[in-house]
């Protein structure tokens, strides 16, 4: 899932102050799981904005709405009747959600309320861990389902560096060594021989350096 966190309220206010009616739109998918932009957070931010504006003797119209997914047109269209009544949309979606809203509602400014951080997992309640960089060439099968690109601080593809001590990374002792995890897991699975296979370096041209990526599947198209 996409992990994000709320921007400081001062930054949000700075972007919104010129408008007199705001539609606050949450997204009940990834960013709800990481407690940044779901239904609860949408209500919280709307109430916080009301209090913040009220304190400054301003009273813009603030309306809340929450979509199941902010990156799919079928869901985005559900706020079509509310959008014309507002000057601006404040999105609690990830960067993809914000841009999807902008593509659909071409005449409305869309302001992001979140900083989109990474693709990750919920390790425990309140802890989200980055574990995928979206490099476009998944090699998890070779590395015991532990990604060296994200879990190794140095993104090493050919074994641990000399800074791994007691399963911890020298970059930060709080970080588990990605390569230690890879080896421990392959050992436990009895598949340590996987590491003797040659894994070519990642071709970063399929990642961000190659421009925005797209996936097109003819079988899924209408």
């Amino acid at each position: 899932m996409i992990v994000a966190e709320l921007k400081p309220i001062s930054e949000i206010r700075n972007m919104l102050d010129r408008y007199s009616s705001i539609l606050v739109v949450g997204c009940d998918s990834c960013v709800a799981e990481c407690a940044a932009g779901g239904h609860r957070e949408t209500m919280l931010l709307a109430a916080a904005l009301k209090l913040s504006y009220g304190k400054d003797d301003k009273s813009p119209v603030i309306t809340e709405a929450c979509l199941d997914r902010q990156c799919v047109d079928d869901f985005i269209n559900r706020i079509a009747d509310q959008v014309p009544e507002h000057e601006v949309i404040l999105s609690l979606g990830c960067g993809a959600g914000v841009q999807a809203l902008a593509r659909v509602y071409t005449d409305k400014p869309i302001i992001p309320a979140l900083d989109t951080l990474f693709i990750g997992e919920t390790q425990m309640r309140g802890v989200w861990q980055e574990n995928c960089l979206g490099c476009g060439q998944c090699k998890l099968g070779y590395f015991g389902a532990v990604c060296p690109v994200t879990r190794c601080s140095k993104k090493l593809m050919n074994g641990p560096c000399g800074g791994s001590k007691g399963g911890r990374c020298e970059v930060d002792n709080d970080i588990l060594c990605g390569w230690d995890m890879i080896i421990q897991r392959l050992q436990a699975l009895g598949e340590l021989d996987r590491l003797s296979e040659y894994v070519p370096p990642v071709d970063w041209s399929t990642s961000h350096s190659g421009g925005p990526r797209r996936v097109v599947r003819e079988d899924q198209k209408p």
Partner: protein
Amino acid sequence: MPVKGASISIMETKPVKIVVYHCRNLQLFKPGEQKIFTRSRPGLSLIAIPCSGKVEAHHLLTTLAGGAQGVLVLACGEKACRYLEGSMRAHKRVDYARWWLQQIGIEPDRVEFVHIPPNDPGALDKFLKEFTFKLESLETIPPVAKIQTG
């Protein structure tokens, strides 16, 4: 020392709006008593909830944005919580709501979390008096437009 009569006269002319979310398991009131308790205290709203852990930060901020000057969350002791973690969670959420108020520039003391003993409306009454006095010393939160939900 505050003049008791003066405080009462303010209450009579302009009651401080306080919303209290209280855990039903505290069994503060016998049937019918809650209404009597509320009637004799203008500006007070009591809302019984199944467990204090049902309260979320957005409830507290929405309550303030809706015109309340202060919000109290009454919970059982952490070890006495019927749902084990409810009281502890409520405490964390109140702290989070207070953090939010600080970010906005509104006094965090407007939201309080209180452990009170069960079956003791007297303890609530005592705390309400202290809380009301504290709120009277703060500026009034300006009224805000009605929250709309889409």
